[in-house]
């Protein structure tokens, strides 16, 4: 059953990215619904739309990032608002049960999903909610979604930004920019873990490498070290801490700069290096530990990204992923690291919709798949 006579897919339009830690959901809310459509629209669909658009929080852990909403967007010939929703992957089973309760399968829509969870939860979707997932590759989706959002812009503003004067903390300012000619770019996706891609065109890319030291490591270590429970809590603590109480700096070892190798005294020589010593362990705060964890993980990602950029001969490094959400400590640090260690050769770029591109890419696949029917 099709609601609209042309080849457009049936509503609701969802794109879903089920990661290791977070599920990212984008929902296209059509605002150009005709009276005729309104009449034909089943109650079920209406209630979903109302539920999603009238709330900003769902259950205990679901959140709609209202500030990211893309308004009056045209997709597949329809105009609407794109909503960005996230909840922890731990809540996935509850989500599937809800799909079952709401009889989601009666809507005859295709649920496009990417991320590892699309594979892991496929059977649960089928057996519990009678839903068939269209599984999509996460990197394909990531790139497609990123290019799309960058293209449509952020409600009249650029999606992309960078930091001017990254090496000067006083004068470091966030500046909007566009990815007019985006290729080649090194795309660093920091989720629970990190994937690094060299992207030459929408369809031509390779995964250069990855690292297991990512957002999940930051949060996991913070929970163990400080007893915190959420990413927000961890970041809040980190923002108040001083990592130099935890890390051993070059000057702690050499008294100043290590001139033989051009290392500044303020550079970190050993992350958590002070913690080898009992007295130091006894004198640090949880905030210091959170900050050190954040700085360690961020610097390491910066270092690997920079090496990849040099090896792949790519000057533009784009950082995305939910690790960067509300995390200016890390974005500024990455901008600084790219600039400083490459002597100004590399530029770090960031995108406002950090972690949602995979979900957007999945939604686009839904629209594309329907066109091809």
């Amino acid at each position, binding site marked *: 059953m099709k609601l609209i006579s042309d080849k457009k897919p049936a509503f609701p339009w969802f794109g879903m990215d089920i*990661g*290791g*830690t977070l599920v990212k959901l984008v929902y296209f809310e059509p605002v150009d619904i005709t009276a005729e459509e309104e009449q034909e629209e089943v109650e079920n669909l209406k209630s979903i739309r109302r539920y999603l658009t009238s709330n900003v929080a769902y259950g205990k852990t679901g959140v709609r990032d209202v500030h990211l909403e893309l308004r009056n967007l045209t997709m597949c010939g329809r105009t609407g608002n794109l909503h960005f929703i996230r909840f922890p992957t731990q809540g996935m089973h509850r989500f599937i049960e809800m799909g079952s309760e709401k009889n989601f399968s009666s809507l005859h829509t295709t649920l496009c999903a990417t*991320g*590892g*969870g699309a*594979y*892991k*939860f*496929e059977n649960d979707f089928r057996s519990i909610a009678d839903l068939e997932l269209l599984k999509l*590759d996460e*990197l394909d989706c990531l790139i497609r979604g990123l290019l799309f959002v960058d293209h449509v812009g952020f409600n009249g503003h650029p999606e992309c930004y960078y930091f001017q004067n990254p090496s000067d903390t006083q004068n470091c300012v966030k500046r909007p920019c566009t990815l007019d000619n985006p290729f080649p770019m090194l795309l660093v996706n920091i989720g*629970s*873990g990190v994937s690094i891609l060299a992207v030459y065109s929408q369809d031509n890319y390779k*995964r250069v*490498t990855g*690292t*297991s*030291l*990512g957002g*999940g*490591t930051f*949060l*996991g*270590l*913070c*929970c*163990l*070290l400080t*007893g*915190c*429970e959420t990413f927000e809590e961890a970041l809040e603590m980190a923002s108040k801490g001083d990592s130099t109480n935890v*890390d*051993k700096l070059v000057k702690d*070892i050499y008294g100043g700069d290590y001139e*033989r*190798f051009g*290392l500044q005294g303020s*550079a*970190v*020589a*050993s*992350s*958590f*290096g*002070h*913690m*080898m010593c*009992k007295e130091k*362990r006894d004198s640090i705060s949880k905030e210091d*530990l959170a900050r050190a964890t954040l700085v*360690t993980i961020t*610097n*390491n990602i910066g*270092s*690997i990204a920079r*090496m*990849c950029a*040099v*090896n792949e001969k790519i000057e533009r490094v784009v950082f995305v992923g939910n690790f960067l959400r509300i995390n200016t400590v890390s974005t500024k640090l990455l901008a600084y690291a790219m600039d400083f260690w490459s002597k100004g050769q590399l530029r770090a770029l960031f995108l406002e919709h950090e972690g949602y591109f995979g979900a957007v890419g999945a939604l686009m696949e839904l629209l594309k798949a329907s066109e091809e029917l």
Partner: protein
Amino acid sequence: MAEGARVDSVTAHAAHTMDKSITLPPDEIFRNLENAKRFAIDIGGSLTKLAYYSTVQHKVAKVRSFDHTAKEHGDRLYDIAVQEEVTARLHFIKFENAYIETCLDFIKDHLVNTDTKVIKATGGGAHKFKELIEKKLGLKVDKEDEMTCLIKGCNFVLRNIPHEAFVYTKHADSEFRFQNTHPDIFPYLLVNIGSGVSIVKVESEDKFERIGGSSIGGGTFWGLGALLTKTKRFDELLQLASKGQHTNVDMLVKDIYGGSYGSLGLTGDLIASSFGKSATADKEFSQGDMAKSLLHMISNDIGQLACLYAKLHNLSRVYFGGFFIRGHPVTMHTITYSINYFTKGEVQALFLRHEGYLGAIGAFLKGAEEDNPNQYSWGENYAGSSGLMSVSPDMNPMQRSRSGTFLFDMLEMDRLERQLVKLPLLQDPSSYIPDTMDLTEDALAREYWLYCFEDALDGVVKRAVASQPEAPEAQERAEKFRQKYRHKLQTLRNQPFAYGSLTVRSLLDTREHCLNEFNFPDPYSKIKQRENDVALKYYLKAVKALDVLQWEERQFALVTGVLAGNVFDWGAKAVSDVLESDPEFGFEEAKRQLEERPWLVDSYDQWFARLKGPPHKCALFFVDNSGVDIILGVMPFVRELLSRGTEVVLASNSSPALNDVTNSELQILTERIAAMDPIVQGGLRDERLLLVQSGSSSPCLDLSRLDKVLATVVRERNTDLVIIEGMGRAIHTNYYAMLSCESLKMAVIKNSWLANRLGGKLFSVVFKYEVPAGRRERPVSSIL
């Protein structure tokens, strides 16, 4: 007993001062302090490494020719005199920082030499102990840059210690796979994992650059580990980690995907997010699991960065060092795994046997620049060096703290008389492996040879005592030798990898080093002398018998002569039994003992065909035993080559080993033969017969470490034939050596076990004539 000396009533881990009542064992640690100079010290976080240079007085056996016109010495050909010789030695000792004061006191008490004014120092702890050192020793502490010392030390060990570098494979039959010394050690990458990580690219002796690094290193493992667990010591954290399960803490690909991420080739067991599962408040994690996860996280991260730098700089040799590595199987394994993963097996992680000493060696070299140590070749002294992973201060901290022992580890290196270089005729020097059998990998062979050397020990002790009848304390010294060598064999039984690949050669060399250590420089000197005397009497008769033969018959008789001569070998147990019980065992009898053709390996027909062709330009002949072998076997063969118009270079050992003829003995013998034989005389006169020392003092032969002079002669003379004689040189070693010219390997197998293994029997003959591929069709003969 160099390893793991025990000092009673010591409480380990007392802060940096130690109970003064402990005394250090003077014969075992800080040896030769009386002549010590040029001290250097490297003080790390927990261990101190001390280096110094000493001169060692050694007894050496010298032969001296008599004036034979006078006839006053009866029948004896030459005289044997034991002289004192002074050789240079480098000492390196590693011990815990806790003992530093005790050790400094000991050094002060034993130091006689007063020329020394300065001690070179490096390492993070050098600053802390500066005052103590200056006060105790009265030497000025002169600090040297840590990284410079590290690189200098690394270059030195790579250049001078064969089998310095190894690949570590946890689950293989032998965990350590030692690497050949590459003729050119540069360029390489050194990844030093201390509290942080430094990645250094080394391009030449003096050119190196820190191309990168990381703050996530050993300090991160230690610091975070101490925060996450109740364990506060580094090595205990490693032990804890080795028992943990990281999958309880890490988020794996399969935790996200339910399986593998097939399209990217990421397996399900791959770690997607380190500590990804610990982002929860309502679960307790085991300390071992967290330590293991931390270890994986840090090792993988370092491995990844090292690979990125290796790729960027196009380097394939990557050495790992620093306290994070230092002989810890756990970290060597995780780093190896990581490198293997990130380079898809293209780059191997290399580790160094003496990694812990690099800083001390480098600091020492900085201080000794005026002596120019790098212009000499140095050799590891097996007698004075603790092996890899024998009881050392790095290992088993728990055990150590319980037993309260003072442990130390030593490395001694002797300055070699001659500078050693590779034979220019090796087909592919970088892939040349001297040894035929690696006993580290062959448990059965290892078992046999260790037994064999243990079994022969009584005989060696007896002969050593007999060689010094005028020394009353020889018996006592010989007993010490026995203990030392037996202890080495025991070490090798437990840790076959202790001194690099275990081979018959290394077992023989270790025995020679131990004999020298206790001043038995040449136990066979008298036997060699007697046999040379006897054999010389038959020389003319043997040559005449050959001369009357037809050319064809003579060629065969010359070969069987060399082979029969080679039966006379005190180094082979089966033969020494016969020789000892029946001194009349003659040359002719030896010929009868030989296997009938076809021999076990027999390319005589090809050799014979070759002899019909044009003469060789120059033959290089590595000779074996004294007595019948050299005089009645080799010399007539050489004489025939000279007659054919081939120049001959006779290469013999520089110093004694078993009953092998030494260069100085061969000089005398050849002169005596020349006096009887105009052909040999003419050869010497016209310099068509040259006697050159090999630079070796081993019964085996390493063609990559030969006297520089020999290499020059070989090149200048356009040598086109290499002859290697005897079991030690042509079977235990070099059996598979590929040369860029024709070669002839001749030996009689005088060991029934080996004969058996090769599919032959006692006195089976190996006659292997080879022409390098491309010159002629390649004779095929492979038995090992």
